[in-house]
């Protein structure tokens, strides 16, 4: 599914990712944890194609293709989805218009027929219901004035509608109460399948009780410095990151 090799990326001349290696197979869930500023969002944004981040070295192969050569929207068409840590507010673009445009753009790119307005509404409604969202929200401007929780739910709604092959969730659980967190977990679990993979960036082990990961990685200072199973998350929750930092200070 995804093969990241020796990935280096910088922003404004500062190297943030300093040689990331990560293999994600179809159907797997990978959790990425790590202290603030370690480069988790940078990695997520590089995968989604954000231009501010310059890839200086390394490769990313997605489904056998060079992901770094693809345009942002082409990545989406190919099934890459990033649930943003901080979704952008876009005044004047209604949720309904945005979802319709996004769904049809992907369908066009994949050679499928666009949905008729009736089909579209039905499809969107079925998912808002699943996520326990008020339909009135579809009339509002995209993310404008949404609470933190509403924004995260909205990211999950988009994921459910676009049905990606590789979903990257950047701290979708941060700031959510337990009920909202379950909604996020449910929407991930509903999509889990042998040909779909997830990269879940989080600070909290709590989420991983609901989305059980196959692997947990620790990103520190632009590198993955430790990988393990789900028990690694428990360990991090208990002991924090200091021991990892120390280990790396010794090693480095």
């Amino acid at each position, binding site marked *: 599914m995804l093969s990241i090799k020796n990935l280096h990326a910088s922003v404004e001349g500062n190297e943030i990712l300093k040689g990331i290696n990560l293999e994600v197979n179809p159907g797997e869930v990978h959790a990425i944890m790590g202290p603030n500023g370690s480069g988790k969002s940078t990695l997520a944004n590089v995968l*989604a*194609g*954000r*231009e501010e981040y310059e890839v200086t070295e390394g490769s990313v192969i997605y489904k056998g293709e060079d992901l770094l050569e693809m*345009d*942002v*929207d082409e*990545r*989406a*068409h190919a099934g890459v*989805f*990033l649930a*943003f840590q901080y*979704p*952008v507010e*876009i*005044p*004047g*673009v209604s949720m309904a*218009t*945005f979802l319709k*445009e*996004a769904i049809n*753009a*992907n369908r066009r*790119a994949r050679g499928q027929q666009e949905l008729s307005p009736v089909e579209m509404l039905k499809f969107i409604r079925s998912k808002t219901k699943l996520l326990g969202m008020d339909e009135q929200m579809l009339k509002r*401007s995209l993310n404008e004035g949404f609470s933190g929780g509403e924004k995260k739910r909205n990211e999950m709604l*988009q994921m459910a509608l*676009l049905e990606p092959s590789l979903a990257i969730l950047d701290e979708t659980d941060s700031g959510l109460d337990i009920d909202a967190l379950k909604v996020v977990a449910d929407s991930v679990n509903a999509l889990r399948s042998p040909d779909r993979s997830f990269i879940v960036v989080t600070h909290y082990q709590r989420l991983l009780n609901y989305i059980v990961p196959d692997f947990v990685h620790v990103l520190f200072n632009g590198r993955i410095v430790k990988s393990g199973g789900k028990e690694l998350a428990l360990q991090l929750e208990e002991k924090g990151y200091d021991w990892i930092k120390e280990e790396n200070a010794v090693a480095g």
Partner: protein
Amino acid sequence: MPTAIASEHIGHFIELYEKAKALSSPAPKLAALQDKAAAHLEEMRFPTRRDEDWKYTSVRQIVSQNWALGKATTLSPEHIENAAIKDLDDIRFVFVNGQFVPALSTPASQWPQGLTIKSLADALEGEDSEWLSAKLEAHAMHDNPFVVMNTAFGQNGWYMEVQKGAVIEKPVHLMMFSTGEEAFVQFPQLWVHAQTGSEFSVMEHYLPKEGNTPHFTCAVSCLRLEANAHVHHYRLQRESDTAFQINFCEVEQERDSVYSSYATDLGGAIVRNNQNVLLEQSNTETHLNGIYLINGEQHVDNQTFMDHAVPHCNSNELYKGIVTGKARGVFNGKVLVRPDAQKTNAFQQNSTLLLSPDAIMDAKPQLEIFADDVKCSHGATIGQLDESAVFYLRSRGLPLREARTLLQFAFLGEVISNMPHEPVRNFVEKLVHDKLYNH
């Protein structure tokens, strides 16, 4: 100080005036007024960029041309039908090259009750409007030469009087077509007198010309709203990019009246709009909405003047535009709150997206407040598209062009959504969308 060049340019228009006189003979009152205006014009000069009000807009390219008057001609009914606004049930006035074409217009027998429409000459002869003759006298002696010129030439003006309490459902739609190979000048003139408690909508619609010969539209509109009258005034300008327009619109509001304007500029090489509103009595509401979407070498200059002369009036201005290529936009919004105008609410916002390095926007809000118990604010912003928003949309699969179009459309949508007639809104949305997408 009149320069030789400037007066020479005036001379061309005086010659043109003499020619026009030889061809037509309007009724005596109008003829006298026009002669008066022409005589005044002869003593004037055209403004230059040294004049404060014309600092950003040079009219030299416009006034230095040797214009002819538009020749009477016609278009096929299909042509008009194709240009109609879908689903808009309107009262049509069709003009071709500045000349009224009755055969293509809604016949007088179908004009609604409560709305009196007369040619300018008839209205003046009929003595039914003191207001009209007083205003025309003032225009003949106006200090803006384009207003004077319009008065001198404007034999094709229309006077619309909305009777007391009449609610006119159908908007009056003035469709201004231009056609043919000849460069010409036209002088549209619109008068609206909305009596107490009446409701009325009118649209000036300037359509694109086929072919690249330039023409020049020098338009004046003048609206008076009596107590509690409600008027919606659209100006939709989508001429070809070789056209020149200078518009002067003057509004007078009596107590409790509500005036809303919706000015959309998509076309034109050089366009200058003056929108003046005088609040004569209390408790009025004024909404000035404006859109400019320009590229290439287009130049659109909007000047607004809100004159708060009395207490308890509310005005709200929202002008938004997108400027790309080497285009230049100008917004100069003057709000005057006179010493008596306590409890005034006056808001003004001008926002522009400047999307290319060579595009220019000059935004100049001017608040002059001489009363102390007022709420006034203004804001002028000039910015770029929010790149993180573009990225967000693209990351959901929207191609770059769609993403940018959607964001720009949303930006202007705030103004379009204020237009009360749904067919007009849909029509403007489509025009804006097409122009954005084909940038």
